[in-house]
């Protein structure tokens, strides 16, 4: 027996231009905002479009961007990681302390720092999942603990609150190739972190949209009970996300360490919100289940351009935060407008 079905389409769909489907991607608003900010500063400042200028704001954006992409994945998966900023400091300090003070091999130190970061990420995931406490609170506690340990341990071991003499460590120059070098492309001095940023954004996008784990990330963020009920391994997915964020923290920690060849105990404190801002400007929902990696990368680009653009424009620096606030508001409003135009439900 078969139930006969007429699947003819009625006139209930007003229009369905393929462009519109594209316009409904989460990152479209951020793209428009990024273009607007780009044009604005290109037009109103001298240095913004010079090769040196471009490489400055690209570099600035890349450091925020790597973390923003990881944090965006986590946010799509329904969680926050407020310890992400401090983590960049922790990993840098670990490498700094064990190499400059205890003479450990640099490669070993890098692996050690990564291992510690991943362990902390796993611990975050574990506490969040086993207790059911909101990750906002759990990772806030982690943040405080890392912040305290960064300071106290560094002081205890080195006697001061910053790592000195990093560039005298054997192997520093080799490691710098991966983390702190730059190379010319079309007249631009491109820092290697920009390569990392683009590569990670591409990878994250692929994973999110084209793989099973990516599908699960949306599911656990959108409706965790439903995801569990259809058999998604919720714990594993969240564990992976927290560890990814921690791993990204390690990467950024290394990029900073090898760029300025010093790291301070306060490194990264307060940056965690910038990552969240980038992700949200890029179209991620704070409540989870919706967003994109490219969007977060664009959010970071907006932030980096605004941050450096304000300096290029030579506006009174005391107003910096006020300008940033205004731009944040503007970016999310443009984002909203574009999405509404595209007929999305916000």
């Amino acid at each position, binding site marked *: *027996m*078969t*139930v006969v*079905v*007429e*699947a*003819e*389409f009625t006139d*209930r*769909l007003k229009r*369905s231009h393929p462009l519109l*489907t594209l316009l409904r991607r989460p990152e479209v608003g951020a793209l428009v905002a990024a273009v607007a900010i780009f044009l604005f500063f290109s037009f109103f400042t001298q240095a913004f479009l010079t090769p040196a200028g471009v490489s400055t704001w690209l570099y600035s954006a890349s450091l925020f961007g790597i973390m923003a992409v990881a944090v965006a994945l986590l946010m799509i998966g329904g969680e926050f990681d407020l310890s992400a900023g401090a983590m960049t400091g922790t990993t840098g300090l670990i490498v700094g302390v064990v190499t400059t003070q205890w003479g450990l091999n640099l490669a070993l130190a890098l692996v050690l720092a990564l291992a510690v970061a991943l362990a902390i990420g796993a611990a975050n995931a574990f506490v969040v999942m086993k207790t059911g406490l909101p990750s906002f609170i759990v990772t806030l506690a982690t943040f405080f603990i890392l912040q305290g340990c960064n300071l106290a341990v560094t002081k205890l071991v080195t006697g001061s609150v910053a790592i000195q003499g990093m560039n005298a460590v054997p192997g520093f120059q080799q490691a710098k190739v991966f983390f702190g070098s730059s190379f010319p492309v079309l007249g631009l001095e491109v820092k290697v972190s920009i390569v990392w940023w683009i590569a990670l954004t591409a990878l994250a996008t*692929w994973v999110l*949209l*084209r*793989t*099973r784990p*990516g*599908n*699960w990330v*949306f*599911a656990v963020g*959108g*409706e965790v*009970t*439903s*995801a*569990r*009920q*259809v*058999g*998604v*391994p919720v714990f594993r997915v969240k564990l992976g996300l927290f560890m990814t964020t921690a791993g990204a923290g390690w990467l950024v920690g290394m990029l900073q360490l090898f760029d300025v060849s010093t790291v301070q105990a306060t490194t990264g404190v307060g940056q965690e919100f910038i990552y969240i801002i980038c992700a949200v400007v890029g179209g991620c*929902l704070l409540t989870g*289940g*919706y967003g994109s990696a490219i969007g977060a990368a664009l959010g970071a680009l907006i932030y980096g351009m605004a941050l450096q653009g304000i300096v290029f424009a030579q506006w009174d620096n005391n107003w910096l935060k006020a300008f940033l606030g205004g731009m944040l508001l503007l970016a999310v409003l443009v984002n909203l407008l574009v999405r509404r135009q595209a007929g999305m*439900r916000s």
Partner: protein
Amino acid sequence: MTPAPSRPEPILEVRDIGKAYGAVRALQGVSASVGAGEVLCVLGDNGAGKSTFIKILAGAHPHSEGTLLAFGAERRFMHPREALDLGIATVYQDLAVVGLMPVWRNFFLGAELTRGRGPLRRLDAARMRATTKHELARMGIDLRDVDQPIGTLSGGERQSVAIARAVYFGAKVVILDEPTSALGVKQAGVVLSYIARARDRGLGVVFITHNPHHAYPVGDRFLLLQRGRSLGDFAKSEITIDEMTALMAGGAELEALAHELERR
């Protein structure tokens, strides 16, 4: 259609099972079973514990008393995954869909089709889209766009997706919690025919409904719950539709009611 004198070997069986949510005893001392090619209807008032019963079978909540046997072995499901892996597919009353995700991603969630291997293993989106469209069309739902978020579908459309999914994936047992409640006459008919077909293919079906007219035609056994306790587990031969309705309604007031409605 009359129950065979020897019942099939039970696939899922519970004995004196019970569950408490904090201070509330939602279920206690219930025993029942379902075999291959059998439909077990669970009937009962609101709050009788039907959803709780099937959540135990589906692995959504572990039971707090009694024993649960799946394929002859004692189990205590801690995670729906465990039940799913045994071939037990469930449609929950609250549907278990992710509102913001496209219909096709919801359909295949947790059992995605992939192409390629190793690091290149990726979702086979085209095939999943096509399958989703096809399976829904078979239920009489023609979606304009399987890419729209499932949250924008009407209640009944959403239910149809959940049912189509469970039937598509249900390997040994399909559990349905009030699948027809939000459905139109046509769709409800389709669901009932699905149940009959699943049964005929040798699957065990656990079917919860408030509508005796939906339950009686397809059911082989009827488990009646009231306030968390079992009123009995009847074979179809042991009970008529009117007795069943009367038991469910808790008395004979129904007749009076029918008259009442017409009076002005």
